[in-house]
């Protein structure tokens, strides 16, 4: 039985095709999930892709949080369903309080698209178990609001519990502690500003295939489960 990974499309989601393709390339089945449905279709894990859901004219992710599908996803995530949110997906996970902190306007005040060097800090998640702790990777970033902020207590707790999943090498947006991604306490919910789905093929996207590790990680986790 193949692993089934849901890919959520909100109005304004942009990287859903990319995420589905990366999931298929890793050998799993990509299952489209529609924002307006109260249905997770029995998937084994969920990928919340990037984009500008509902236009993001309000705070990024603030409206998506209330989508019918999120009413199913939030409790499932609290019960252990593996969830990865990238970019707008990360912002939505923070707005839904599945992850702490918030993503604010880049310090440069400009949108930035570039191939970013990063370090994998936490490999104890279903999405990062294929990496070595401390492994350096290159993934694209592309966002205007990716500056991770949280209060000092939250930051201290994230660091103490090894819940920082990835850190920037050369901070592109002013994120506190160079944080590019975090996980929840249980480890099943991960949020990242970088885009692993754009670094899975030699022909297209970033000059790196380091993104594949996220997809092989979840496949390994689900197949071994």
């Amino acid at each position: 039985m193949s692993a089934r990974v849901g890919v959520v499309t909100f109005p304004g989601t942009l990287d859903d095709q990319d995420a589905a393709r990366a999931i298929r390339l890793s050998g799993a089945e990509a299952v489209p999930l529609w924002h307006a449905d109260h249905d997770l279709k029995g998937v084994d894990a969920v990928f919340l892709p990037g984009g500008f859901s509902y236009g993001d004219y309000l705070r990024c992710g603030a409206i998506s949080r209330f989508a019918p599908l999120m009413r199913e996803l939030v409790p499932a995530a609290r019960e252990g369903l593996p969830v990865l949110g990238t970019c707008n997906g990360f912002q939505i996970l923070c707005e839904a309080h599945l992850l702490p902190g918030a993503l604010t306007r880049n310090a440069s005040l400009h949108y930035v698209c570039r191939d970013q060097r990063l370090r994998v800090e936490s490999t104890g998640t279903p999405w990062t178990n294929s990496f070595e702790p401390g492994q350096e990777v290159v993934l694209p970033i592309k966002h205007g609001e990716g500056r991770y902020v949280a209060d000092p207590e939250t930051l201290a707790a994230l660091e103490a519990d090894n819940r920082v999943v990835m850190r920037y090498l050369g901070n592109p947006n002013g994120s506190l502690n160079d944080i590019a991604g975090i996980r929840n306490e249980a480890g099943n919910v991960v949020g990242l500003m970088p885009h692993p789905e754009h670094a899975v093929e030699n022909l297209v996207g970033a000059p790196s295939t380091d993104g594949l590790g996220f997809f092989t990680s979840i496949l390994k986790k689900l197949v071994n489960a």
Partner: protein
Amino acid sequence: MSTDSVKRAVETPAEPMPFAELGMKQEEYDRVKEILGRRPTGSELAIYSVMWSEHCSYKSSKVHLRQFATKAPKSDALLVGMGENAGVVDIGDGWAATFKIESHNHPSYVEPHQGAATGVGGIVRDIMSMGARPIAVMDALRFGGADQNDTRRVLPGVVEGISSYGNCLGLPNIGGELVFDPCYIGNPLVNALCVGLLRKDQIKLATAPGPGNKVVLFGASTGPDGIGGASVLASATFEDESHAKRPAVQVGDPFMEKLLIECCLELYAADVVVGIQDLGAAGVSCATTELAAKGTGGMHVDLNLVPLRDHSLRPEEILMSESQERMMAVVRPSDISAFMAICQKWDVPATVIGEVTDTGRLVMTWDGETIVDIPPGTAADDGPVYERPFHEPAGQSALNADTPDRLDRPADLRATLLELLGSPNLASKEWVTSQYDRYVRSNTVLAQPADAGMLRISEIMAGAEPTTRGIALATDGNGRYARLDPYAGAQLALAEAYRNVAVTGARPLAVTNCLNFGSPEDPEVMWQFAEAVRGLADACRTLGVPVTGGNVSFYNQTGSTPIHPTPVVGVLGVIDDVAKRVATGFVAEGLRIALLGETKDEFGGSEWAHVAHGHLGGLPPEADLAAEQAMATVLVEAAALGLLEGSHDLSDGGLAIALAESCLARGIGATVALSGDAFTDLFSESSARVLVAIRPEAFDRFAALCVDHEVPCYGLGTTGGTSLVVEGVLEVPVAELRETHSGTLPALFG
């Protein structure tokens, strides 16, 4: 205010109408009266004034643009030519590409962010209306001097507008141009290109056939934005009080546009659309008259049904509003419920506002009264056509006689290289392009700073048949060359875009163009325009690439000073196996470097003359189209055979800049030797030249290919090391090249 109905127009024939305020000339107004046999109503006047504006009717350019058709080369690839929303070309395996470039110059000066954003939105809807999925955008931008104050206002706003709109839409931005010249200070050029993909048998056209079919307006509601944009902004020269025109710039909502894209694609897939037209310049006026004129010929519209976001709008304003993110479709009555269900799924408001008739008249009502009753073709197709007088500018011969031969040539070529490399026109564009998403949808094979953008096509649409093909696109233009000789300048723009496509391994197939000029009412500007069109049409015929569509932007001038004539040319090419694309620059150590083409002493209009001396005079480089064609053949064949590791076109700044950029691509140095005069070899801008990097064992096969096609091929040296070394002339560490190249724009714009 009472409604000016047809009945009232008949009863009050002498009532004065504000045609001059709407940009209409007396003789044009007289013709409307002649067509209608009475004075027009206010609503009819609104329609004719926008449809007969320069922007919509091409009244000054039409007589020249005809050459693109009469001189068009025979091409099996052309599926839809000029006159539709965008041209469509056959790219093989059942696939077609549609592409077009369009200006949004004047709005971008008045309100840079929204002007540029809605420029992207408009061209994307043109592509959607052909039945295609838009797959990428590019932007050719020109601003005043980089250090001029107003450039600091306009450039960041334009870039932010393109960034916020294009990124939110989910279309990769894969290339374009960024040029600074004081001639553009009051008239920045914002030319936006979009390319879309569709199955060859699924082309949609702007037509309203079949009496009884419903006319559906869908997308955003109609507001007071952009009223009169087409006639007021695009068709008039700026005077000092131009800021008073601010309300005429439209405001964009990229989220609605993203919904419209997905909604339209689902409507096409469900086959519930008979004809479709986007609402751009001239809004409802344009969509209704054009759809009706190309269909059965008649249409009835109840303007009260148009959804409004400002309920105080009068019918004249509804007709002229340029509110963004709107489309108009013609739908069979039996398909209406399926159509509406798809719109509802995507949260796209849709309203039936009328139906197709066989009366031959476009009739509109408001509060039960007939306010428009016209033959639609008279507004859409039979606008005025002007044979504007033209003559060579008074100072043209003196300009051509003032050659760069009198300029002092430098002794320190290392300093010259760094001076040019750090100058705004040649410096890294990353400050701009890093604000654009180039990765979304994961089909981007090449993006800036590559010579051309390239996309694979097999993975673009769900259920697509497997194909190895890809498409490549480049845009180029050089206002200084065109100022010195508009005929040659237009040809050089085409030659460069054609070459930029070929260096990636793609075969150039078709052309789009955006012709940016001053006022057509100035005979000297009109001469520049006529010469440029003639040059471009002749070159397209020689190179075998037809013009598929484009756009003319006149009145780019402040007072009596026009911009440099600036034809911007986009070329689309196809590569049979996208995996065989050639990267830009030096991609590995130990490769042989060769220069293709001949270098002559050509500095007229060059970047060196501009940067080092602020000089513009003489003649531009010779456009050698036969050499371009032979070289493209070699490049495409060599790429298919896997002989090329890297390549780079030579253009502004000549060989020196091409070498430096090639080193910067991957941070790999090079050592080369020159045989002639070092300054000429390094900085001349002779056209039809390309730099290639080849594995040593493949060099002889490549050289033989060049001999077969009579393309000059000179071995220059090898790649490797950490510096760019020109033996006996200069040596610069790649790190120093990088610092010089990357620091300029951030220092200027923050």
